[in-house]
């Protein structure tokens, strides 16, 4: 028997997990220095600024996160196939074992890539006299792996819940048509795209140039001349992650959480409004079939689109009001 409240409740759990996932994704890219702001870390040695930053840019964040999440999702999925028949009455027990093991495998791959990326990139800067500090290398691996673990764990859990959503709410026909590894891949790409586009601003614009004037875009002449000294001693990435965890990380988490919330809720609300829920069509197939459709199903899609367009319009107007308020509050540029 399908319980609609359970469906909505699981969606909230997914949105919360998404919040945690993207928060830690951004912090992982800060503690390991990945993605766009790392261009400054890379440039620093070339403009004569020898530093103690961890220089890891394995690839763009979406692709590297997709890799970890897909490795974790695939391993977890294989383990689930083997473990679920052992406990047919309580399949969650299989998930409790399979998901952390899958994520642990991904974390190991993450550490290997971190070491090779940091050593390779720094060794390539020998001509700029940038040394490989071994304490920087060893000291950052565990924070990188743990932050990455949190992200991958949450994403794999989201994929597990989504691929079993119908079963968890009482009717397996509402399970998502995609398999667990593909869902892990999709959300891995998306979490990386958001972490890269939102969270990096706090690290790149603010923390990397903290000895430059606050409240202006960082000029081209500053590029490469990053802040190398911390509140106490020489700065490493560990000083950066603590700073970004106060604003950049949670803001990024909120972005992904909101996207997941809006996307899932508009579909569910559409199904509610079109009366597709709570009584599903009796002939709805167990394995999703694209050739199956009902009038209520089509109306669900229409309502979902209407709700979605309403959200987009609200954000458009919200941004206009926000930008107008900021311009009035901050005023024109007054520096030199």
């Amino acid at each position: 028997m399908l319980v609609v409240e359970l469906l909505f409740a699981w969606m909230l759990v997914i949105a919360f997990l998404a919040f945690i996932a993207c928060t830690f994704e951004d912090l992982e890219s800060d503690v390991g220095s990945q993605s766009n702001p790392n261009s400054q870390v890379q440039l620093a040695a070339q403009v004569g600024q020898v530093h103690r930053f961890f220089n890891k840019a394995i690839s763009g964040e979406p692709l590297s996160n997709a890799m970890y999440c897909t490795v974790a999702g695939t391993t977890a999925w294989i383990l689930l196939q083997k473990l679920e028949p052992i406990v047919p009455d309580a399949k969650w027990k299989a998930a409790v074992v399979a998901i952390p093991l899958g994520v642990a495998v991904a974390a190991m791959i993450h550490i290997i890539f971190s070491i090779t990326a940091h050593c390779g990139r720094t060794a390539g800067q020998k001509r700029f006299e940038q040394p490989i500090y071994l304490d920087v290398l060893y000291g950052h691996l565990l924070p990188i792996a743990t932050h990455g673990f949190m992200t991958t764990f949450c994403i794999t859990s989201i994929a597990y819940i989504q691929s079993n959503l119908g079963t968890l709410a009482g009717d397996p026909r509402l399970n998502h048509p995609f398999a667990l590894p593909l869902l892990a891949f999709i959300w891995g790409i998306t979490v990386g795209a958001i972490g890269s586009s939102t969270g990096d601003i706090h690290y790149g614009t603010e923390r990397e140039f903290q000895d430059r004037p606050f409240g202006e875009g960082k000029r081209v002449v500053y590029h490469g001349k990053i802040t190398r000294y911390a509140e106490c001693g020489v700065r490493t990435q560990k000083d950066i992650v603590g700073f970004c965890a106060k604003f950049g990380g949670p803001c990024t988490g909120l972005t992904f959480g909101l996207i997941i919330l809006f996307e899932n809720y508009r579909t569910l609300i559409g199904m509610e409004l079109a009366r597709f829920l709570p009584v599903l069509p009796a002939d709805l197939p167990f394995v999703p079939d694209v050739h199956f459709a009902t009038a209520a199903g089509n109306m669900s899609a229409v309502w979902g689109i209407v709700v979605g367009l309403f959200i987009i319009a609200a954000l458009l107007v919200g941004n206009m009001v926000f930008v107008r308020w900021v311009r009035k509050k901050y005023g024109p540029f007054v520096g030199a």
Partner: protein
Amino acid sequence: MALEPEMILIVGYVVIGGLLASLGAHLLPVGGAPAAMGTATGVATGTVQLMFGAVMTGLFTSSTVSSFSNNIWLVAISGAVGAAIMITVVMFMANIMYVFGCGIVPVSGRVAVDPITKEPQTPYKTPQTDGHGVPNVVFISGTMGGFVGGFGGGLMYFALLFYANFTYVTAAIAALSIFLANAILAAYNIRGTTEGLYDPKFKRLPKALVSSLAISVLAGIVVLLATIGLPQGGI
């Protein structure tokens, strides 16, 4: 084997989807690495990554909708709305980060006066930068880009699922791959940063569309061969 109308539809929808992917990528406000330092306008990531992230989100909803609706327009528009929601939330939160985290006013580097809200841009811009944040003109262009790109992705996904009889997973992977190829072609045109509709780089669109057409026709033919050669869409 006789040419069936469905075969033409497969190639047609793949080509339209590919062209829309290219157009969508040109409309997105891509700031790349400079945007992460507040040196350029837009979202601080690459063209392909931003487009891919948005379309992934759209495709997730498209696939949910395709399990209870067989109307191509509903599936495609669901994907378009999903991608547009992703991109608008990202742009809005990026603005929050610029304003409250770095004390920067969103301002365009390409236009002196916002063509939509008529707000002056130049007095608010930091010297020696190319604008910063996501101003309204860029925001609207980005929303259009997400919508168009998501629509293209949803269209291709549905064509592969419904006409080529691929399985759900194969259709998603194939649609994303064709989409990715087109987004990468667009990225060559954009070269780092763009502000979308009002950027001079947008004028290079026709050349990108020609190359996109070539790659999409090729991809459509490969999909067609897979449909003919492999029963049930193969895998």
